[in-house]
């Protein structure tokens, strides 16, 4: 260690972050689907030769957390002699290191120096349509993974620099949007190749030994930061159980000691016969994100950060589903687990975690024929919603769930041009809920007016029956749901629906929850209440009822 200058190690670390960012930009600039280039439903990162995250990467945190696990699975499945310079592996299947669902394709490129494997560059992105029983590939009533699209079992998409054309043609032939699939696939290839090239330049500049020491050194530092933070957490055993919208009860137990943070989720329902399952790696990611929130949100994150974390799962349970299970809505299962661990610990960790947020991806898939071009379009969009309040501050309004992190909602202009829908409204939600001494942030209301007959809508929202949970006597938040307002009159409310037919003139209203409040509403600063009334965040009647304030 002592022979390596700490400044150089720091430069290498910062370079790895910059390379992840450059990979991210390359993919954004070349992709063909708005879910990638606008929403940024993607992530990029770099691991060491063994598949440990070398930097915090770029993009959705729950996606960056996939990349290390995918590399480790490729290493398990392939003879080292069969992993060669110029190769790019593809996986999208939880059984083969894909972690999430078939729509999220992971591309992985080994990086070599003088014949020695020294790192991996990787990306993951949501591809709009990978086949399966419904457009957009995610079906709320799929019962087997075979109904959800083409499975890519960690195979070579590129072999020593040569594209595997046969595989590419099979993938295109299975997609309803083959041109987009091809464009997004090559965007991902560009990202990992550009990352590998930059790593080679870095190694050429500083030497391979220094590069490798920098990776190890920084992971050890990540572990040190996490262990230090762990020491200041309350010690003991914490348990919690919570009923879900679908009637199931999820349970968690967290044991925190000076040197370990153990999340036990073995006592949970058997895997779902539908697509509401997570794989073990996915459950680990949910636990990693809460662990990260507790052990230094602004500090570095890498493979070392998570060394004190252990996750105990039961094979065949909803959090460790076995092969053949469908995974289309894995993210709602993982965000539920993430929120469950959060809720379990929030009252005990001295303000580190705010009260509950809308905590659903609120994935909304709307597709059909573009009224202007006649081409098929598919909107795949996560939604923004309200966050929970905490002591001293109101919750954030209209941002993505903690699970989804650094993404953006699609601008109305882009949605209208690309998808041929009209965005009638994009406002904050005016529903009650989330009041407190500090109030939760507001959810949103968005109206999409459909312009062509025979379009379809698929959604899978949670926190639709049981809204976000409050702390310290606050009021719970509102709920997430979709309303379909038919042109001829009539209105249907949905939170889980697949391929619902919608026609020209129908309006799809997306409503997301307000975050939950913190503290007794009667104690809210009267000036803040008057401000809320002026801003339309609360009605005068409700303000009088909850806060005892007259205008």
């Amino acid at each position, binding site marked *: 260690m002592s022979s390596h200058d700490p400044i150089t190690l720091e430069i290498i670390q910062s370079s790895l972050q910059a390379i992840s960012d450059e990979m991210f930009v390359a993919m954004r600039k070349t992709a063909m689907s708005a879910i990638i280039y606008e929403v940024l439903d993607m992530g990029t990162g770099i691991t060491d030769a063994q598949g440990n995250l070398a930097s915090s990467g770029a993009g959705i945190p729950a996606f960056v957390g996939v990349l290390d696990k995918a590399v480790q699975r490729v290493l398990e499945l392939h003879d080292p002699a069969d992993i060669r310079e110029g190769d790019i592996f593809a996986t999208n299947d939880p059984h083969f290191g894909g972690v999430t669902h078939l729509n999220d394709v992971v591309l992985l490129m080994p990086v070599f120096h003088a014949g020695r494997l020294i790192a991996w560059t990787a990306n993951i992105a949501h591809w709009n349509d990978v086949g399966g029983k419904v457009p957009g590939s995610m079906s709320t009533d799929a019962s087997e993974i075979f109904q959800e699209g083409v499975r890519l079992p960690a195979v070579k998409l590129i072999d020593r620099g040569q594209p595997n054309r046969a595989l590419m043609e099979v993938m295109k032939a299975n997609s309803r949007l083959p*041109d987009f699939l*091809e464009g997004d696939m090559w965007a991902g290839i*560009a990202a990992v190749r550009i990352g590998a090239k930059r790593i080679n330049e870095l190694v050429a500049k500083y030497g391979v030994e220094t590069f490798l020491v920098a990776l190890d050194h920084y992971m050890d530092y990540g572990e040190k930061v996490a262990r230090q933070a762990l020491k200041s957490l309350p010690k003991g055993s914490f348990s919690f159980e919570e009923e879900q919208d679908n009637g199931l009860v999820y349970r968690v137990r967290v044991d925190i000691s000076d040197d370990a943070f153990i999340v036990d989720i073995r006592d949970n329902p058997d895997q779902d016969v539908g697509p509401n399952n997570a794989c073990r790696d996915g459950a680990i990611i949910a636990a990693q994100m809460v662990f990260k929130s507790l052990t230094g949100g602004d500090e570095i994150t890498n493979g070392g950060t998570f060394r004190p974390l252990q996750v105990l799962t039961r094979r065949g349970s909803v959090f460790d589903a076995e092969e053949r299970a469908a995974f289309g809505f894995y993210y709602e299962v993982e965000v539920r687990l993430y929120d469950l661990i959060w809720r379990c610990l929030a009252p005990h960790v001295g303000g580190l975690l705010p009260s509950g947020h809308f905590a659903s991806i609120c994935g909304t898939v709307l597709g059909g024929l573009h009224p202007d071009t006649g081409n098929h379009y598919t909107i795949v969009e996560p939604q923004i919603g309200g966050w929970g309040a905490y002591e001293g501050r109101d919750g954030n309004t209209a941002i993505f769930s903690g699970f989804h992190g650094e993404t953006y909602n699609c601008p109305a202009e882009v949605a209208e041009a690309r998808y041929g829908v009209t965005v009638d409204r994009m406002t904050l939600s005016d529903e009650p809920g989330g009041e407190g001494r500090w109030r939760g942030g507001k959810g949103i209301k968005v109206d999409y007016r459909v312009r062509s007959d025979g379009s379809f809508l698929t959604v899978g929202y949670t926190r639709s029956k049981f809204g976000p949970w409050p702390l310290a006597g606050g009021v719970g938040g509102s709920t997430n749901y979709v309303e379909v307002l038919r042109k001829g009159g009539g209105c249907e409310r949905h939170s889980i629906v697949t391929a619902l037919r919608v026609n020209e003139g129908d309006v799809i209203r997306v409503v997301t929850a307000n975050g939950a409040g913190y503290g007794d509403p009667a104690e809210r600063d009267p000036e803040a209440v008057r401000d809320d009334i002026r801003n339309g965040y609360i009605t005068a009647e409700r303000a009088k009822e909850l806060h005892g304030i007259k205008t």
Partner: protein
Amino acid sequence: MMMTDLRRDYFLTRLAPFDPHDESARQVVADAIAEIEGLARDQYLQEDIAADQVKFTRLAKMRYANQEHSVEVLLPDGTVTSELLDQAAREFHEQYEREYTYRLDAPLEFVGLHVIAVAEVGKLTPAILPVTGRTPEVARKSRREIDFALAGKHMSDIYDGDLLEPAMIFGGPAVIETAGSTVVVHPGDRVEIDSYGNLHIELSEGTKA
């Protein structure tokens, strides 16, 4: 800065398929060029710069259909023909592959035009500065200690740059202060002022290393 030509950048967005062998697609490009170049000439004319003094560089903003971001490709001078656009398409594929490691066999889209209109204006002629016979000592306004990092701390001469004149020679450690910038002369380096007032600094072996 005072020596450069006048330059204006014009941007026009005009979405259309980029198909060199389709007449209406070619016309979109030709119309966009005519529109921007006409506008540029008119604007220069209002400043008494004749049309024949204005030179254009035309860049097409292009992408593969369905993409969001575009790449700028040089459009050759001359009338917009199939050959000219074929050449631009080849250039697009090459440039795209250089930047992003691959090319696609997919339709191209014209996103718009970026035109650079440059008008040459009369250049200034640099004049030889008069020599009054002042010595560097006259230009030296003070001395102070300066930390040159690796070269250590040294008492250094501070010069008023406005009082320097051709043929003066002096050595570092020194600092030359002018209204626009401050020039640091390391110990052992040698400064000579040329006929136009430029500073020539000859580095010593120590500074080069």
